[in-house]
C-alpha cells in the first residue's frame, strides 16, 4: 500500500481536500469519499460510460483515472449540471422525449451530451450517434436518447438566437 497523497480538486464548484491512496479510482473518490453518487459504475474498464464526468473541459470516464491524476482538476458531475429549480435543457429533454428507462446510464449520458453540444452545437443525428458511442445504454435502444439530444440542441440554439 502506497503512502497517502494530499489531493486537492474542485468538484461541482466546491473545493475538496483530502488524503487518499494514489491508486484510488476517481469514481470511487466521487461516490464513496465525497458521496457524489450520480456517476455510476457499469464496468470499471472504460467501456460503458456510466461514470462519465467532465474534467477540465473534457469528457472523462472516471473509472479509468486515478485520483492522483485528478489532483488539481476541475470536475463536474451530473450534480453540477443543473439543480431542481434550474434544470439543464438536456435534463428536461431526456424526460420530455423518454430518453431513459432504468436511469442507470442517464447521469453519464447527460454529462457526456453537455460536452458534445459544446463541441458541436448543431450536430446531425449521425454525429450525435458517433459522439455518444462511448456511453452504453441497455434499456432504451438509443432512439429516444438521440431524439432528446437533438431536441435539446435545437432548443439551446433557439435560445441563443433569441438572446442575440
Amino acid at each position, binding site marked *: *500500500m502506497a503512502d497517502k497523497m494530499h489531493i486537492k480538486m474542485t468538484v461541482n464548484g466546491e473545493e475538496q481536500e483530502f488524503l487518499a*491512496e494514489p*491508486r*484510488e479510482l476517481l469514481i*470511487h473518490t466521487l*461516490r*464513496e469519499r465525497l*458521496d*457524489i*453518487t*450520480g*456517476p*455510476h*459504475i*457499469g*464496468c*470499471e*474498464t472504460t*467501456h*460503458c460510460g*456510466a461514470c462519465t464526468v467532465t474534467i477540465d473541459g473534457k469528457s472523462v470516464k472516471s473509472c479509468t483515472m486515478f485520483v492522483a491524476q485528478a489532483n488539481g482538476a476541475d470536475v463536474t458531475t*451530473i*450534480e453540477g449540471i*443543473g*439543480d*431542481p429549480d434550474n*434544470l439543464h435543457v438536456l*435534463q*428536461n429533454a*431526456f*424526460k*420530455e422525449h*423518454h430518453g*431513459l*428507462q*432504468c*436511469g*442507470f*446510464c*442517464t*447521469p453519464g449520458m*447527460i454529462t457526456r451530451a453537455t460536452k458534445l453540444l459544446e463541441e458541436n452545437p448543431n450536430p446531425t443525428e449521425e454525429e*450525435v*450517434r*458517433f459522439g*455518444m*458511442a*462511448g*456511453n*452504453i*445504454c*441497455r*434499456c*432504451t*435502444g*438509443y*432512439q*429516444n*436518447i*438521440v431524439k432528446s439530444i437533438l431536441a435539446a440542441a435545437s432548443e439551446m440554439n433557439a435560445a441563443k438566437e433569441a438572446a442575440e
Partner: protein
Amino acid sequence: MKDDVTREERVDALGGMGCKRKRVEDARFTQGKGNYVDDIKLDGMMFADFVRSPYAHARIKSINIDAAMALDGVAAVLTAEDLKPLNLTWMPTLAGDKQMVLADGKVLFQGQEVAFVVAKDRYIAADAVELVEVEYEELPVITDPFEALKSDVVLREDTVDENGTAVDGAHGPRGHHNHIFKWEMGDEPATNEVMDDAEVVAEETMYYHRTHPCPLETCGSVASMDKVNGKLTLWGTFQAPHVVRTVASLLSGIEEHNIRVVSPDIGGGFGNKVGVYPGYVCSIVASIVTGKPVKWVEDRMENLMSTAFARDYWMKGKISATKDGKITGLHCHVTADHGAFDACADPSKFPAGFMNICTGSYDIPVAYLGVDGVYTNKAPGGVSYRCSFRVTEAVYFIERMIEVLAIELNMDPAELRMKNFIKKEQFPYQAALGWEYDSGDYHTAWEKALKAVDYEGLRAEQAQRVEDFKAGKTRKLMGVGLTFFTEIVGAGPVKNCDILGMGMFDSCEIRIHPTGSAIARLGTISQGQGHATTFAQILATEIGLPADSITIEEGDTDTAPYGLGTYGSRSTPVAGAATALAGRKIRAKAQMIAAYLLEVHDDDVEFDVDRFVVKGAPEKFKTMKEIAYAAYNQAIPGVEPGLEAVSYYDPPNMTYPFGAYVCVMDIDVDTGVTDIRRFYALDDCGTRINPMIIDGQIHGGLTEALAVALGQEIAYDSLGNVKTGTLMDFFLPTAWEVPNYETDFTVTPSPHHPIGAKGVGESPHVGGVPCFSNAVNDAFKAFGLRHTHMPHDHWRIWKTANDLGLHG
C-alpha cells in the same frame, strides 16, 4: 352544482390509460438522484469481495486465509467451513436444484465463489482476496452437453448413490449422472406417425448460443443485521423482493417478520436479477458474523462469469407439411446446457419454462417437445433474458423452422406463415402442446406489416440485387427478415405456476387520502419499465383521481403487499390486473358514499370519469375528491370510515401478445458487416396503457435482440475459461450500431384481463432475435444457405459467405 369543463377535459385531466404520460421517475434519474444499491451507505458498513476459482473443474485441497486475515482492515474471511454449521453451504435454486454458496470441496465452473472476504473498504477487500491461498487439483473439464451425457466423469457427486448409479433429480429419473431432467410435452408417437406419412418434411438443428442479460448495473446487496432488535434488513438488486424475503427466512431461520427486503432503484434487470446469488447469502452471513452492515457488489467481469447466463439450447427440429404448405406436425428436441447448477428461474413445474409455446402462431395439429437438461462445467443459470421463461428460444426455433420449411417447399415464407396462422375465430385456441391462447388476429397484423414495408417491392429489389451480385455489379447482398411471434406472458395461474411453492399471483393495495390523493403499493418492482407512471395511469382511469395525485410504491416488503415480482412481462398482466381490481373495490365503496351524499339509492348513481352522477341527472354528482373527503369526515350509516382496498390477483390464464416484424438488411460479403436499413415492428399487446413507454420498451427490446442475434455471446474454451469476460469481448451495441426503428400496432385486448392489457416489455426481444437472424439467413438463401447459427458477427458472416464460395 355547475360544471364548466367538458367530459373530454375531465378525461384529459386524469392522465389515465392510453395517454403518453411523461414519466414521474425521470426527475430524480436525470439529476443523478437515483438510489441504486451501490449508492447505499450505512454507518460502519463493510465491503465484501469474492475469491473465485480460476479453474472450471477442480478439487479444493486447502484454503489458507491467514495472510488475508492478518491484513489491516479485514474483518472476516468466510469459506464453506464457516457456512456448514449454519447449513448454508448449499442453497436451493429456483429450479428445484441446489447450488453451492461457497465451494464445498470442489469447484465446477470458472469464477465460482470460493471465499468471501469482508473488509473496511473495497480496496482492502480486493487486496485480501489476493492473499487467500487456495490449492486446487485440476479435474477433467466438460463444456459440451453432448459429451457430458456420454462421459464417465461425475460432475456433481450428489447425482449418484454410493454405487455410482444416477439418483432421481427434482423432475424425475436421470438417464445419466450428468443429466438433470427430461421434460416432455405433446404426443411423440402421433407426431412421428404424421412425419412418416408427410409429403414434405424439413429438418434443422440450431444452436441458440449462451448469452447474458448484462444490465448496466451489476448485482449487489447490502445486509444489515440489527442484533439489538433481531431484525435483518437486506437491500439488493432483486426482481422479486418478496420471494427473496421468504427464501432468506427459510435459509437463515430468522422469522419472516424480522426480515425486511428492499429493492431500491434497479439499473435494469432483464432476468439477471431474479435468482438468489451466493453474494446475497454471504452478505447476510457476514453481517451476522461481523455485526456490521456488509455491502457486496459484483464487478462486470463477475457479472458475466457467474450470475445468470441465458439460453445455451441445442434445438433439433422437424416440421412436416403438405405439398401446398399446410403444416401437419412439429417435433422438437432440446439439449439444454444449464452449467454447473440448474439455476434457471422458471415456475417450478416448468423445467424448460414455456418452451412448449414452440408451435408459435400456427395451427399445428400435432406436436412433440422433449427437453433434456444437462450439467457442464459452465456458469449456472438458464434465466429468461428479456423474455418469459424460454419463449425467446421457442420463437426463434419455430420462426427458423418456418423459413427452412419455406425453402423445402420452395414457397415464399410470408405466404407460408399466412397460410398457417391460427385464425381469428379459432380463439381461444387450444395448442397442441398445452396452452390456450387467449386472443389474436394474426392475419390482420401480418397484412398490415407486409403492406407497410411494401413486401413485394422488397422481394423484387432483392431479386435484382442477386442478379447484380452475380453480374459483379455489387458486393452487397440484401436480406429480408420476417418474424411473426406469439408470446406467452403473465405467469401465472396459481394452479400451475409457482416459484418455490409461492403461487404466482400479484397484488395491489390502495389508500385514498382525505384530500383526494392516493398511494398504491404493489408486489412488483420496476427496473426501468416506469411502473410509477403506468400503474398510476391504470388507477387514474379506474378511480377517477388524477395520475399526478397517485404515488406508486414497490419493492419494500415491510410495506408492499406480497407479490412475485417483475420478470416475464408479468407486471401488467398480473399486478396491473390487481391494480384495476383494487381500484374497482375503491369505486364500489365510493358508490355507496356518493349515493348517501346525493340522497339516492346506491343503484341510482353511476361512475363517470372522475365522479358519481345520479342516473339521468348528470348535474347531480359528487366528484371522487369529494367522496374521498366524505369517507373520512362523515358518519355514513353501514359504511366503515376510510377508503382503502387490497386485491390479490390470480390470473385465470396467461396473456398472449403477438407481433409482426420485418428487417431489411444489407450485408457486405467481403467484410461480413451488416447494415440494418429498416426495421418495422408491429406489436399487439392488447390495451395500450402508455404508448410512449410501449415504444420505449420496443426500441430497447429490439436493441437487445440485435445484440444477441449479431454478436453477443458468452463463449468458453475447452478448458472452461470464459473468453468473453469483459465488455471488450461481450458485445453491447452503442448508439452507433443501432438503427432507428419504426413501430406500429394493432389492438386485440385480452378477454380475461380486467383492462385487456397483455404486457409488452419482452415481445420485441422475443420477436426481434429471429427477425435479425432470418434477415442474415435470407440474404444468402439464393446461394444455397439453409441455416447458419447465431450470433451473426462479422467474422461468422464472412465465413458463411466464404463457405458458400462467394469470395471467388
